[in-house]
C-alpha cells in the first residue's frame, strides 16, 4: 500500500464558538476571524509538515482546493504545490483536486498542472473535482451547469495535454481559437488523473471507464467498500479488471502509545474537524442542480449536515483509525482487505491538532505503520466482503 500525507490546511486557530454561532465555517463565516500573522505561520507550519512527510518516507503529499472557509486555506493549491515542488524531493505531489467548473478558463489548469509535472520531473498527480456545493455560493458559479462544465473542462485539459497544438476548441462553455499550452506535461501521455468523490454513482462509473484512480472521501469503511466494489464492477463492464492501485481511501490516522491515550488526545481536534470545520446547512452543501433530485433527496433525508459526531463513532464505523500502533496496523489491514484499495490518503493533521502533536503522529506512523504496509496488497476477500 502507498500511504500519502493528505493536508487540508485548516485555519486551526478559528474561533469554534463563532463558527457554531454562524452555523458554518464556510462562505458566511467572516474573514475578520482570519489573522494574517497567525495564518502566515500556519502556512509555513503545514508546508514544513509536508516536507517532513517526504523525509519520513510517506509515498506522497496531497493538497486540495476549497474557497472562503476556515476548513482549508488552499483556494489556489498550485501556489503551495509550487512551494513544495522543489522541497519535496522524493514523494509524489498530488492536488486532489482543482474544482474545474469554478474556472472560466480551464486551460489554466492544463498549464498549471503541466508546470508542476515538469517541476517535479514527473512526480505530479492531477486531481479533478467539481468542488462541494458551498463553492458555488462562494465563487458565483451556477451549480446547475456544474456537471456539464466539469465534463467539458476535463475533455479540454486532456486534449490540451495529448493533442499536438495549436488546435481550436469549441464547446458550449469554453471556446478557444488556439489550444497550444507550453509546457507540455513531463509524464507521457499526461500525469495520472485521480478523481476524488463522495460516492456519486455516475462519477464512479465515469472514473472506472476512464481508468482513473478513484479516491473516496470521508466515509465509513463499509460505504467505502461498497463504492470500491461499484468501481470494480464498472471496470468489468468496461472490459477490464481494476487494479487496487486504482482505488484510494481518504482517511485520518492518529497513533499514540495506547488506544485510550490516542482517543483522548485526538478527540477535541477531530471533533472540531467534523462538527465545526465541516459543518454547513444543507442549502449550502447542496445548491439546486448541483446533483440530481434523487441524490438531493437522499442527502436531505439522511440529515447528514446537522449531526454532531463523536470520535468514538468515527472510529467505530471506520471513518478514521485512532489507536495504538498495533490497533492502527490491524484496522488498516482489515480495511484494506475489506475494501480492496492500495492507496491510503491519510490526514495526519486534522481540525485543531497542533504542530507538535501532528509531527509526533507523523513520526509514529512512519516508524510503526508504513514499514508494515510497504509491500502489502489487499488480500483476497474484498469482493465478497463488499457484496455483503
Amino acid at each position, binding site marked *: 500500500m502507498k500511504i500519502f500525507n493528505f493536508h487540508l490546511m485548516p485555519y486551526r486557530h478559528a474561533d469554534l464558538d463563532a463558527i457554531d454561532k454562524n452555523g458554518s465555517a464556510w462562505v458566511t463565516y467572516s474573514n475578520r476571524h482570519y489573522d494574517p500573522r497567525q495564518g502566515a505561520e500556519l502556512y509555513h507550519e503545514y508546508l514544513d509538515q509536508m516536507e517532513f512527510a517526504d523525509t519520513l518516507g510517506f509515498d506522497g503529499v496531497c493538497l486540495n482546493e476549497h474557497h472562503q472557509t476556515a476548513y482549508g486555506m488552499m483556494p489556489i493549491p498550485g501556489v503551495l504545490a509550487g512551494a513544495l515542488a522543489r522541497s519535496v524531493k522524493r514523494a509524489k505531489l498530488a492536488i486532489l483536486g482543482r474544482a474545474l467548473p469554478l474556472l472560466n478558463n480551464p486551460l489554466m489548469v492544463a498549464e498549471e498542472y503541466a508546470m508542476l509535472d515538469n517541476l517535479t520531473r514527473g512526480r505530479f498527480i492531477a486531481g479533478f473535482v467539481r468542488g462541494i456545493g458551498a463553492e458555488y*455560493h462562494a465563487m458565483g458559479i*451556477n*451549480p446547475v451547469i456544474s456537471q456539464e462544465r466539469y465534463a467539458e473542462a476535463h475533455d479540454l485539459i486532456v486534449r490540451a495535454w495529448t493533442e499536438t497544438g495549436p488546435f481550436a476548441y469549441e464547446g458550449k462553455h469554453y471556446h478557444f481559437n488556439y489550444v497550444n499550452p507550453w509546457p507540455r506535461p513531463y509524464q507521457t501521455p499526461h500525469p495520472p488523473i485521480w478523481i476524488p468523490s463522495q460516492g456519486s454513482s455516475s462519477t464512479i462509473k465515469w472514473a472506472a471507464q476512464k481508468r482513473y484512480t478513484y479516491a473516496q472521501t470521508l466515509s465509513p469503511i463499509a460505504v467505502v467498500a461498497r463504492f470500491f466494489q461499484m468501481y470494480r464492477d464498472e471496470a468489468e463492464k468496461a472490459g477490464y479488471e481494476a487494479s487496487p492501485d486504482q482505488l484510494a481511501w481518504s482517511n485520518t490516522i492518529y497513533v499514540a502509545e495506547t488506544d485510550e491515550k490516542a482517543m483522548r488526545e485526538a478527540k477535541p481536534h477531530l471533533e472540531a474537524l467534523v462538527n465545526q470545520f465541516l459543518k454547513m446547512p*444543507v*442549502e*449550502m452543501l447542496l*445548491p439546486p*442542480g448541483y446533483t440530481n*433530485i434523487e441524490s438531493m433527496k437522499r442527502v436531505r433525508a439522511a440529515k447528514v449536515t446537522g449531526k454532531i459526531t463523536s470520535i468514538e463513532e468515527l472510529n467505530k464505523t471506520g471513518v478514521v483509525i485512532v489507536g495504538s500502533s498495533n490497533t492502527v496496523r490491524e484496522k488498516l489491514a482489515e480495511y484494506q482487505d475489506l475494501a480492496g484499495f492500495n492507496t491510503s490518503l491519510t490526514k495526519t493533521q486534522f481540525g485543531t491538532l497542533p504542530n507538535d502533536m501532528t509531527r509526533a503522529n507523523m513520526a509514529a506512523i512512519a516508524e510503526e505503520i508504513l514499514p508494515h504496509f510497504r509491500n502489502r496488497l489487499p488480500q483476497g476477500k474484498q469482493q465478497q466482503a463488499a457484496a455483503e
Partner: protein
Amino acid sequence: MADHTTTTVSVRGCNIKLMRGGSGPPLLFLHGSSGAGAWLPFMQSLATRFDMIVPEHPGFGPSDTPDWLDTIHDLAYFYLDVLEQLDLDHVHLVGVSLGGWMAAELAVRDTHRLASLTLVDAAGIHVPGSKRIDPFLCNDEQRIRDFFYDPARADEMIARVLRPELEDVTMKNRIATARLAWQPRAYDPHLRKWLHRINVPTLIIWGANDRLFPMEYAYVYQQLIPGSKAVVIPECGHVPQIEKPDVFVSELIDFIDGMRIAA
C-alpha cells in the same frame, strides 16, 4: 363564475402546462420561481374580466425542460413564440418576480402583440446599495417566510406547499430558478440599457415590504420604462397577488380600464 381548463401545449416541440379560464381580452400571466401549480383566487378574479392564460414555464412543474433552456432570454423568445402560436394580439402581459423579469425581457425585444405590460415585484435589474436577502442560502421554510409581510399568510403558504408529495416538483422548480437566476443573482446587467424600448402602457406593482427586491426597485423600473406608473401596496411582501389579491386585482383592472379611457 368563470372556470378554467388545464391542457398541455406543444410549442416548437416543447410541451408545457397551460391553465386558461374566463373571457375577455387576453391576459398572459408569467409566474415566478414557485411555478404555477394551482389556479389561485387572483386568477379566478381576473378571469371574470379577461381570457386568463397561465402557462407553466419550460423547466417548471410538469412542463418539459428543453435542451435549449439556458438563460432568461431563451424564455423571452419562447413566449414570443407562444404569442405567435396561440395567435394572441392586444395582450395584457403580467409577470411576477422571475416572470416579471421574463416579461420585461420579452417587451424590450418585441411589443407588437402587447396591449400593456405589468411588472410585479420583478427581478431583472440590479439596484446598487439595495439590501436583498439571498433566497438560495436559506431553507425552504425561511424562503417562503421571506415572501410575506404577514407571518400568518406565510404559515398558510408553508402548510400548503411544503408537503412531501410536492417535494419533487419543488426541487425541479428550484433547479429551474437557479438555472435562470443564480449568477448574476436574478438580473441581467444588460437589461436596463434597453428598457426604454418598451412602448406600451406599463404598470409597476410592488409590495412595500418586499425583502427579495426592495421597493426602490419599483422606482428604478419606473424611471427606466418611459411613461410607466408605479403602485406600491402597503403591508405587503414579495407576492402581492397572493398576500393582497384584492388590491392587486383592483390596481391591475384600474390601470387597464384607465388605459382604455386614455386611448
